[in-house]
């Protein structure tokens, strides 16, 4: 199939859900309502670290309109170990305690109680009437403080197995080792070692978390919610509430952005528990402040990166120490960070030590290529310093060391066919790189990035209609246009127009198990499921055609929209002719497939960014950006470009102004979109995209995940551009005006340009 030229894949049809979304008709989680519905609101901790001594709810319950108040006492106490919930490994005790604190609050905004009332306003007022007595504990806000001996301990159950079973804030230590790193550094002519600090940042989806839950008298319940994974919500919400998983139906609403932050649950189990207690539907919508204080951020980090190379530019060794903020419970993406930080390069000797560290900040969640962007900020800027020392162009230097098919990945297995070299070549040959950059305080920077992509499980059903159209049901939530891409895959296999396939996202009872939309897996794995389901339908149609042509099914070929027998090609039946007769040839035709995809093509990107620095204020203007990414095979190029532009934009925000700012009491200061500064329309240039297509081995279409890797290079590319513009090497994210100005002033005064991460 992949050999034949595609007819539908690679074209740009209007997305099937488009009209609903430009007319305001598309229903997102918050747009659902039920008769007699209550509204839920949460009480959250004003302290970063405290013991809860008592919770009094009587005043809140006395307020007219209040129907119920719940605390962690209303939820089952779950086992404190990693388990599979559905298909996802999760520590249910930690999950449950993060939704409603048990005994201890571990961050500013940690939920303590939930109220259900007849209006949202009444619920808010009731929350103010709940009285909580705290014993305030000292907050631990940085990985440095958390790893100190004698540090305040967040979770006494956590033990350091490596050092005599002591209490610790280090949830895990992972190490990767290849060759003898000291030998590698001996062989180097140049060695660069830097320490980097990157701030905690949020995914920043515009739609706050929401949930509408109804628990019925028969013990069956339903949740409508904006999530990246309806089956994950089913598993996690049921576990937290202590009900059988399959008594819960989860209906995925349209979702207003996720970027990894809507893979887990926050409100869903709470709304369900409130519904169970009141017997009425309960709707919850998070405030923006709660979204920032209590959901999703990805880890801030401290990374020490040392690399050496020969004078002709061959990297000989890399040594990395990295510690990521897990937040209040274990689970930072430091493992992934460790496996990507030097993965784009063929380095004979390396050692990487990675630590997952508890701090009094929100439990981190996945964010687009989790752990990779902070990691690349370190490795990709050190690489530019090495390139400068060698006097080699920054793209050429990367080409000299780029990973190829057969290069060992950090964890050991060799890469199959990958396209990093092709991305770098594409960037090198781009009009952008060939253009001259003139003017004072302007600079140009390149960086590369790698992300795995995951396979996991997907299901799809293709129902062929008598009029020659088809309906497609998938379990993958559509965050950015994947529904259209899947319809195109079905259309390609069925030999009909993309417009003639009507795709829809099924709920947990109308489609087979499907993992979350995440890990850049949807176009790839669900695409493979749709491909197989459509082939299943075609196989059945061949049998029908065989009856009509009075031939054996195995004789029947389907090409260019018509069925015929090899023995008699003159007698052809069109797709429409065959499906029109399905009732008389054996009934409806419905193709189905469920896949567990394991060979998944990882993706690489390389990004080129021009900046202009205002040396008086330290403010950076991004003048031009170009992203080259290996997408395997683009299904719908417009939405692939959109992913690349969106990831680049988020990466630029991370580079320049986005950060969590906590005061010394551990309270988040910037919990609104005024002071959590995501890029506006005026902060970004036109973002150019180059789609590099190196087909992924083992995939029916050759697609690779396209959603994530594009966020990885920008911060390092901006840092490299700043260095090129004003000669200062930034080792901190974000590179906000006060920090860059300080570096520029330090450089003028001749002092070390390696600035402290402190201060804003």
């Amino acid at each position, binding site marked *: 199939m992949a050999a034949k030229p595609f007819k539908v894949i690679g074209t740009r049809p209007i997305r099937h859900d488009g009209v609903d979304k430009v007319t305001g008709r598309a229903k997102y989680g918050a747009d659902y309502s039920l008769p007699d519905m209550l509204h839920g609101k949460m009480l959250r901790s004003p302290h970063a670290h405290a013991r809860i001594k008592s919770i009094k709810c009587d005043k809140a319950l006395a307020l007219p309109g209040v129907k119920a108040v719940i605390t962690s006492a209303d939820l089952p106490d779950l086992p404190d*170990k*990693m*388990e*599979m919930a559905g298909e*996802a*490994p*999760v520590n249910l005790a930690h999950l449950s305690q993060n939704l409603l604190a048990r005994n201890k609050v571990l961050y500013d905004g940690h939920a303590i109680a939930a109220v259900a009332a007849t209006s949202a306003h009444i619920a808010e007022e009731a929350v103010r009437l709940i009285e909580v007595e705290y014993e305030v504990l000292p907050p631990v806000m940085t990985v440095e403080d958390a790893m100190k001996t004698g540090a305040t301990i967040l979770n006494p159950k956590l033990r350091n197995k490596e050092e005599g079973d002591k209490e610790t804030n280090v949830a895990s*230590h*992972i*190490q*990767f*080792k290849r060759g003898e790193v000291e030998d590698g550094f001996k062989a180097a002519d140049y060695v660069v070692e830097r320490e980097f600090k990157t701030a905690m940042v949020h995914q920043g989806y515009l739609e706050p978390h929401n949930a509408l839950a109804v628990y019925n008298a028969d013990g069956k319940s339903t949740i409508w919610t904006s999530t*990246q*994974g309806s089956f*994950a919500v089913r598993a996690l919400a049921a576990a937290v509430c202590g009900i059988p998983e399959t008594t819960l139906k989860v209906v995925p609403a349209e979702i207003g952005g996720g970027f*990894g932050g809507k*893979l*887990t649950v926050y409100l869903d189990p709470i709304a369900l528990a409130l519904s169970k207690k009141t017997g009425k539907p309960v709707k919850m919508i998070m405030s923006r402040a709660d979204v920032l204080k209590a959901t999703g951020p990805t880890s801030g980090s401290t990374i020490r990166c040392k690399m050496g190379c020969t004078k002709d530019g061959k990297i000989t060794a890399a040594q990395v120490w990295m510690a990521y903020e897990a937040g209040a419970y274990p*689970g930072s*993406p430091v*493992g*992934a960070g460790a*496996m990507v930080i030097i993965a784009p390069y063929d380095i004979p000797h390396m*050692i990487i030590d990675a630590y997952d560290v508890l701090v009094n900040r929100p439990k981190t*969640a*996945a*964010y687009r290529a*989790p752990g990779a962007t902070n990691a690349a900020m370190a490795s990709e800027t050190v690489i530019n310093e090495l390139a400068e020392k060698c006097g080699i162009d920054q793209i050429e230097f990367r080409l000299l060391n780029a990973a190829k098919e057969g290069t060992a990945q950090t*964890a*050991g*297995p*060799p890469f*199959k066919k990958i396209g990093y070299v092709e991305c770098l070549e594409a960037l090198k040959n781009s009009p952008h790189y060939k253009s001259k950059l003139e003017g004072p305080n302007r600079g140009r920077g390149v960086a590369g990035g790698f992300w*795995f992509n*995951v*396979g*996991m499980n997907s299901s799809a059903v293709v129902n062929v209609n008598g009029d020659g159209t088809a309906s497609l049901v998938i379990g993958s939530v559509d965050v950015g246009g994947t529904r259209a891409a899947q319809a195109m895959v079905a259309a390609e296999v069925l030999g009909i127009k993309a417009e003639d396939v009507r795709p829809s996202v099924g709920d947990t009872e109308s489609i087979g198990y499907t*993992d*979350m939309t*995440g*890990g850049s*897996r949807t176009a790839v794995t669900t695409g493979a499921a749709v491909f197989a389901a459509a082939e299943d339908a075609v196989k059945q149609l061949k049998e029908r055609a065989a009856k009509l042509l009075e031939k054996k099914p195995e004789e029947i070929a389907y090409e260019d929209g018509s069925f015929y027998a090899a023995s008699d090609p003159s007698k052809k039946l069109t797709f429409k002719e065959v499906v029109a007769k399905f009732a008389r040839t054996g009934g409806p035709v419905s193709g189905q497939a469920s896949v*567990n995809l*394991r*060979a*998944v093509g990882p993706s690489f990107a390389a990004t080129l960014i021009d900046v202009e620095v205002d040396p008086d204020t330290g403010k950076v203007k991004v003048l031009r950006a170009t992203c080259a990414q290996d997408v395997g095979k683009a299904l719908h190029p417009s939405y692939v470009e959109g992913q690349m532009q969106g990831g680049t934009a988020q990466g630029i925000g991370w580079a320049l102004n986005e950060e969590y700012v906590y005061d010394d009491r551990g309270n988040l200061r910037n919990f609104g979109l005024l002071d959590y500064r995501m890029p506006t329309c005026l902060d970004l240039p036109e973002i150019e995209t180059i789609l590099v297509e190196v087909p992924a081995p*083992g995939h029916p279409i050759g697609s690779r995940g396209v959603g994530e890797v594009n966020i990885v290079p920008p911060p390092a590319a901006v840092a490299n551009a700043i260095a090129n513009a004003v000669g200062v090497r930034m080792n901190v994210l974000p590179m906000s005006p006060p920090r860059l100005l300080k570096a520029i002033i330090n450089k003028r005064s001749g002092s070390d340009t390696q600035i402290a991460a402190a201060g804003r």
Partner: protein
Amino acid sequence: MATVVVPALLRKLTDGADRVTVSGRNIGLVIEDLERQFPGFGEYLLQNGELKPSIAVSIDGDMGTGGLLDKVKENSEIFFVPAIGGGL
């Protein structure tokens, strides 16, 4: 005999060896053999009779199902790597 590439922190169990040879026609049997040769391996890899959720297996460059029945060929190359999920 298949080859297992030993995760860095487990090389203390194999007195530093980064590759060891094992017998067994599937991952479950391979882990049994590892435990026999290098006591402690099992505890690191298994949790109540199943592969730990945090660990993935790569056999000859392809990710395994996460189950213990994944086939292992003569002279297969096996890696135990941290699982990359969707990010829960």
